[in-house]
């Protein structure tokens, strides 16, 4: 797993789960892959072993990982679950985007307008390449 660059103003166990989910979505981790033991992971990211335990328990509870006695912890998620996670993460980003835009006073039409303009610019940039 990658080095966790956590935000100390948010629950660390949740950030461990999010980091794991991001790696699944990016394909850096796939079904059946072995992940570090709780102790190894705690040492790698310098986090309290109880916090790591809580994150691992939650990963197992939501069906993303499973621990096989004597063998270790493995990624369990199938492609359907991974695409659901990807969708949920995208929804989160969109929710934050809309909430921020609303707080700046942008109405729906204005948001559509800026999005369209941005998409056109991106398209232009790609054609120029």
């Amino acid at each position, binding site marked *: 797993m990658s080095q966790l660059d956590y935000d100390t*103003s948010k629950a*660390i166990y949740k950030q461990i789960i999010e980091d794991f989910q991001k790696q699944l979505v990016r394909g850096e981790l796939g079904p059946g892959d072995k992940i570090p033991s709780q*102790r190894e992971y705690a*040492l790698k990211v310098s986090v309290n*072993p*109880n916090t790591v*335990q809580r994150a691992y328990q939650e990963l197992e509870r939501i069906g993303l990982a499973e621990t096989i006695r004597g063998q270790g912890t493995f990624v369990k998620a199938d492609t359907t679950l991974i695409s659901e996670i990807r969708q949920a993460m995208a929804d989160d980003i969109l929710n934050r985007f809309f909430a921020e835009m609303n707080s700046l006073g942008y109405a729906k039409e204005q948001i559509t307008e800026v999005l369209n303009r941005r998409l056109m610019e991106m398209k232009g940039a790609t054609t120029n390449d």
Partner: protein
Amino acid sequence: MIEFDQVGKRFGSIQALDQLSLQFGPGKIIGLFGPNGAGKSTAMKMIAGLNQPDSGHVLVDGQKPRHSRVKIAFLPEIDHLYGWWTLKQAADFMRSFYADWDDRKYTELLGFLNLREDMKISKISKGQRAKCKLILTVSRRAPYLLLDEPLSGIDILTREEIINTLIRDFREGEQSIIISTHEINDVESLVDEVFFIDQGRIVVSGSAEELRITQGLSLVEIMKEAFRHVQQ
């Protein structure tokens, strides 16, 4: 379980502990935070049985601290090792003194912390001396580790080594580590449970993760907030 019940302690005109009540549960890494002079060291020494409350009482697993010293490995803030000792002599002393000394762990940690047994306490750097104090404390299989300011005045790489040693050897469920420090930044991700104290009283306490979730702040920010309210 370590319990403080209405503990008061005065040194001359200074009220070091003021009706302090708290409980340190098992299986956790606990942070005791507060500014210099808040009462952290007084509380730590009391658990180690090195000073007595004026009022109230302190219990370690239901016993008075002076009867439970075998359960407590204490790392004091001061330099308590003789300068003329080598690390080996200090370890020999600990080995003869404490039945829970774990030689295998000590040998492993020598390598992990890059220490050599022939190092002479008076000849090594402050960071190395801090690591010597640490190895002598954590090589005991004591149910309670008390670390009083284990990171203060030490360079960042050594601080990381110390924190990783604690993570590496922490025995979940059966051990408690209590760390007092005024440098909360260093231990944000290390502690489970926190107690912020000032003028011998608890200002804020709770689970580190729950405090982050409910307040949306880091432990450092929570402490700043708490003390701002205290001073007003």
